[in-house]
């Protein structure tokens, strides 16, 4: 079965991103396909390459990165939500004359259409709100 996830919660502040990650891992462990994880609202903070938790705590951005690399999963950050919240890739940083960028390289910035596309392509879309 094809799953996609929509994540609207900030890591650490809310447990919901961690729940979503564990659900994603269980989807894959059960032999299902994970088509896309879409980050919106405060969920965009999951993509920060500058996230620096203490070494004995979960590092969600690295967990998503690993999942994406191991299973070739689409990690998409909503562009409108990301820009407002200070998450930029190199291209957006250039476009808006910002001195640097902070998006982890395994995440892609795109539009809300990618959420709709995930809803259309997947058998199940599950939302994780904060």
């Amino acid at each position, binding site marked *: 079965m094809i799953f996609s996830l929509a994540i609207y919660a900030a890591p650490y502040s809310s447990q919901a991103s961690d729940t979503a990650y564990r659900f994603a891992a269980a989807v894959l462990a059960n032999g299902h396909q994970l088509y896309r994880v879409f980050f919106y609202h405060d969920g965009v903070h999951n993509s920060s390459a500058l996230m620096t938790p203490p070494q004995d705590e979960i590092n969600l951005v690295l967990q998503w990165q690993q999942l994406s690399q191991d299973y070739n999963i689409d990690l998409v950050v909503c562009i409108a939500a990301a820009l407002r919240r200070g998450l930029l890739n190199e291209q957006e940083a250039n476009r808006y004359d910002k001195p640097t960028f902070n998006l982890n390289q395994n995440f892609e910035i795109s539009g809300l259409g990618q959420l709709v596309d995930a*809803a259309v392509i997947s058998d199940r879309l599950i939302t994780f709100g904060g």
Partner: protein
Amino acid sequence: MTTNNKSITCKKLLFISRHAPYGTSLAKEALDAILAASAYDQNLSLLFMDDGVFQLLSAQDPSDLEQKNFAAMLPVLALYEIENIYVHFESLQARQITINELILDGVQVIDSKTICSLLTQQDQLLSF
């Protein structure tokens, strides 16, 4: 995408908007999401319930907050041909909001039982 492909992938998507405007950005982000979806030739519906029904009050004036007027944005749904718009009857009732206070004319007020069966007719729920 050919017409044939379209019909194969035409799904029923219900957007459920449960949060008040202004206090959080969820109401606005739900609206942005359904407007984006209108470009994908799917069968779209929108349901307001709980504090989400406050989004529909026509008397809104957020000028002091320097934010966009939510009530003024909602009529754009018709321009995007999103016509299946529902409001939860019991949520309106609990807040003593009458239908003539709402900004949208074409909304269908439905009760809990009807919402329950509306949900079972969908392919996906987008929860806001």
